[in-house]
């Protein structure tokens, strides 16, 4: 039974792991990915990100995440799974997304975690808008590298 949550509120990674493992002794490993807002840019003199806003399609989001989780559960024997994705405006350093995948063995836990975040990035209806120190703002463009990362799980 997966825990899927889309929320403006931040999450507590320790509390989420505790919730995932409560009362269980059959879990051998937990994969964990935390996505955070970063302000770094490639060029030294380029404007820096001051805030990130996540927009989503509320009626579709949890259903789309649920389908991705089901696919992970079909591919690996998972003993628990948590996906939390924040929406709204966030500052650099803040958490955006949490993926936890628990299994009896590390390989399934690690692979399922990587799969979940790769597919979340390309198959769940979220859009990022960045604000910069110079006052400008722009929608983040989808990256071909993200499509390639999702494609390797075909």
């Amino acid at each position, binding site marked *: 039974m997966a825990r899927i949550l889309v929320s403006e509120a931040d999450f507590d990674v320790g509390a989420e792991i505790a919730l995932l493992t409560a009362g269980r002794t059959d879990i051998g490993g937990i994969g964990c990915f935390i*996505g955070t807002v970063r302000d770094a840019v490639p060029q030294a003199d380029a404007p820096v990100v001051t805030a990130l806003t*996540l*927009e*989503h*399609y509320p*009626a*579709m989001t949890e*259903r*789309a995440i649920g389908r991705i989780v089901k696919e992970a559960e079909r591919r690996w024997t998972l003993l628990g799974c948590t996906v939390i*994705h924040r929406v709204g405006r966030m500052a650099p350093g803040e958490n*955006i*997304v949490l993926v936890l995948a628990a299994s009896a063995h590390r390989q399934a836990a690690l692979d399922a975690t990587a799969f979940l*975040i790769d597919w*979340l*990035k*390309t*198959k*769940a*209806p*979220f*859009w*990022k*808008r960045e604000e910069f120190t110079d006052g400008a703002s722009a*929608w*983040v*463009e*989808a990256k071909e590298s*993200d499509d390639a990362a999702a494609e390797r799980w075909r």
Partner: protein
Amino acid sequence: MITILYFAWLRERTGLSEETLALPDSGMTVAGLIALLAGRGPGHAAAFQNRRTIRCAVNQEFADPDTILRAGDEVAFFPPVTGG
């Protein structure tokens, strides 16, 4: 009638988050709807200018250009997703 939703820069360019439309013919596809919407004014024309950068969902499921629309459908247009 169908309900049309816009997200991210499609919402900004059309100036709408939602609109409703009477389906002009029963066999209309997503591609046909895009062609129709692109002619609705300069904002819509700008939003649908580069169709390769537009994704679509019908009733909250990803849809193709040849997906056929039916009365009562919720059709959403948005850019390629960038979450995670």
